[in-house]
C-alpha cells in the first residue's frame, strides 16, 4: 500500500467513525463527534430561498384546504 492510499484509508476510516458516532444520540463521545462534524462539514449550500426561508403551514390552513380545497383548481 503506497503512502497516498494509506492516507486515504486512514482519513476515510476516521471520517466513517465520526459519522457513526455523530449520528447517534448516546454518550459524551457521540455528542463530541457531532460537534466535530459540525465544524468539519460547514458549507454554504445553495438552497433555494423558498426552502431556506420556509416557515411551514398553519395547521388551520391545512385543515381548511383539506376540507374544502382552496387552490381554485377543484
Amino acid at each position, binding site marked *: 500500500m503506497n503512502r497516498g492510499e494509506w492516507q*486515504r484509508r486512514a482519513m476515510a476510516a476516521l471520517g466513517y467513525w465520526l459519522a457513526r458516532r455523530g449520528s447517534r444520540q448516546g454518550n459524551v463521545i457521540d455528542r463530541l463527534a457531532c460537534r466535530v462534524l459540525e465544524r468539519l462539514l460547514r458549507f*454554504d449550500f445553495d438552497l433555494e430561498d423558498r*426552502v431556506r426561508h420556509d416557515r411551514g403551514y398553519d395547521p388551520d390552513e391545512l385543515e381548511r384546504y383539506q376540507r374544502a380545497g382552496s387552490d381554485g383548481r377543484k
Partner: protein
Amino acid sequence: MPGSPFLAPAIRLFKRLERKPADPDTSTRKVLCGSCDIACSVVAEVRRGRVTRIRSSDNPLFKDNICIKGVVAPKGFAHPDRILYPMKRVGERGSGQWTRVSWDEAMGEIGERLKRVIAGHGPEAWAVSTSQWNTGTDHGLGRRVMNHVGSPNWISGVALCAGNTAAINRMSYGWYPWPDYDNTRCIVLFGHNPKRDSWVPIHNAIERARARGARLIVLDPRRSEKAELADLWLPLKVGSDAAMCFGWLKVIFDEGLYDRRFVADWTVGFDALRARVDEFPLDRVAQLTGCREEDIARAARMYATQGPSIIPWTPITDQQRNSTSAIRLQTILRAVCGYVDVPGGEALQGFHPSIVPESDIEMHEVLSEAQKAKQLGSDRHPAFTYRGQAALGEPMKRVWGRTYANQVTGCYMANPTATFRAMAGDGPYPVKAFFALGNNTLLSYANMPLILKAMLNQDLIVVQEHMMTPTAQLADFVLPGDAWTERPWLWDAYGWLSVYRPSQQAMEPPGECRSTFEFWKLTAAALDMPEVVPWASLNEFYDWRLAKLGIGFDEFAATYELHAGKREWKKYLTTGFATPSGKVELESSVLRDLGFDPLPYFREDPAPDPDYPLTMFTGVREGEYFQTGGRHIPEMRERKPEPNLFVSAGTAAATQIVDGEWVHVETMLGRVTMQVKVQDSMPDGLVRVPHGWWKPETAQGLVEGLSSALVHADSMLCRDDDDYLDREQGIPHLKGAPCRIVKLTADAP
C-alpha cells in the same frame, strides 16, 4: 457511507437555517423524506397532530439535504382529493364510477377474485408492479407473498432505473457499489444532473467535493446545470454512452493508464476486452459520440490519473439501446483503473451484519424452479430475471452470505414489456390479475397503448394510491395508502447500502389510509396464508428486523440517525469477487452462458427515418415533480404549470415554432401535446421531453382521457420494439429515439 465527511473541507461561511423560536405547541420527529427516492433525513414539525413543516435535519451529516418537494409535502398530503377510503368500481372499467367499501369488504373480495384467477390460470397469472420509494413499507413483503403463492411476475420502474444497473454491475464484480463522494478526487456524471431541487444530497456531496478540489466531468448532450460547473463537459450524442466508454478505455489502454497489478491479479478476459476496445479508435468514437477526439482523450486521462474516481449511478445509461454494454463498460472502467472497493472509489458495502435485509424477507427460495422458469421475459431478455442472475447465486452465497441478494430490488424481476404483452393476451400464458402499488403503471413504462390494452384485459386490478391516478382510474379496487409522515420507516436504499436510517411516525394517517405493510398482511390473510406475514404491526416487524441489535424500533429511531456496520475496503482480497470466476469478469461468463456476447459492444442507431427527422430523449424528471407524482400540489403547479419540451433556437426556427407555442410531438408509436420552451442549453436537432405528465384537475375516466394522460404522458411516445430495446435486459431506448414536431392548429389544450 453517504454523509461521512472528508476531513479537510473548505471552511466557508456557514448559513444556519432559519428556525422558528421554540413553540410549546410544536413537537419534532426525525423523518426520511419520501418525496423522491433519495430519502433525505429531515425534521417534521408537528402542531395539533398535523405535520405543518418539513425542514432540514439538525444533524450536521444531513444538514441542507432538503428540496422544495419535501417542503410542500404537508400540503400535498392534505389535498382535498386524496383517496381516504377504499373504493370499488361499480361501472365499466375506466368509467370513473365508484362506491365506498370497507377494508374488510375490499380485501375479502380481492382475495376471492385473486384465488379464482390463480385457480383458472395458475399463480403466474398474477402480476404486481410496485414503486418501493412510494410505498415505503413494502420491504419485500410483496415478493414474499408472491413467492409463496407461486408467481414470479413482479415488475417495477427499477427495471429501467437503478435496479437494472445493479443486476448488470453484479455480472462484472458481484455487487452494486456505492460511490465514495466524500473521499473521491474525480466525479464523472453520465447525463445525470443532481441539483438543488433534485437528488439534493448527491448535489451537495458533489459541491463539497468540488470545493476541496475534486474534478468534475460531465457527459451530457445538453449544457445542464452540472455541465456549467464541470472541469470538462463532453456534449456527447444522446444514447452514445457505450461508445464514449470504449473511447476512454482505448486511451487508458494505449497509454498504459490502467492498474496493471489489479488487472493481472483480479480480472479475467483482459486480452479479449482489449481486442474489442481496439475496434474503437478515437476517430470512430468521435464520429459515434459527436465529441472531439482530444476532449475524449483528455477526459479519459483525467478519470484514470486524477483518481480515485467515481462514476455514480445514472438513469441515463440505464435507458439506452446499449444499456447493458454501457453499464458493463462503466464497471470495467472502475475495475481496470483500480477504483473498486477503495476509499474515494466505489464501495462494495454488502449486507448490514445485524439487521434483517429485504433480500431475506422476500424468501425467493420458496418459489419453485419451475415457477421461476416461467418469469415473463426471461427467455429473450434475461439479464435481471431469475434466469439471468442464477449463475451468481453460489458466488453471492460465498462472498455475501446469501444466495438471493436483491439489490435495489432489481435483480429478480420479470421484464415489463413481456409482462404487459402477456396481460394483453400476447404472451406465453395469460396474466389476468394485476396489482399496482404506489405505481402509476400506465405512465411509468414504455408503450402506453400496450399497457392500456393490457389493463383493459384484466379480470382484477388493485391499486394502492394517494390520488386517483390514470392507473387507479382503471382499477377494480383503489385502496388508500399512507404517506411517509404517517408511518415509521426503515431505509437501506432498497438493499443498495449496508447503512440503515430510521424514520419516526409524525402523525396519524387520515381517513382509512393504511401502509403497504398492512396491505400485504391483509392480502396474505385473504389468500389463506396469514402465517406468511405474521407480524401484528409494522413496529413489531421492525423490532424483528432489529432484534440482533438488542433494541426495538422506537429506541433505534430515537437513538440513531443512521446505523452502519464496520467499514472494510478491498474485501475481495480475502473473499474474492462474487462472480463465477471469483474475479472481475471483464469478459462476462454469465452473459456468455445466457447466449449473449460476453464483451460489451455498440449497436448503432437504425437508419434515419425522414418522416421523423428529430431526436428526442424522454424519461426526464423535472425538479418540481418526482416521476408521475406531485402535479396536484398547487405550489408546484404554479412553478411548473405545463409540460414543457426543450428545443434549441435553431430547432425551433427549422420547425417554425416559437417559445410558448403548443405542439404535438410524434413518434411511430404515438403523439403527445406539449408546450415549447426554447433553451440555449439544447443542441440542435434534439427534443427533451419531460416524464410522466397528467393533470389531476382534469376529467377522470377512460373516455375523458384519463386526466390528460393520453394527451401529455411521454410513455405514449416510447417504443419497445426490438430496435428500441436493449438486448440483454429488454429495457427501452429512451435516449435518442426519432420524432417530429407538428404545429397545432388549435389553441392550447
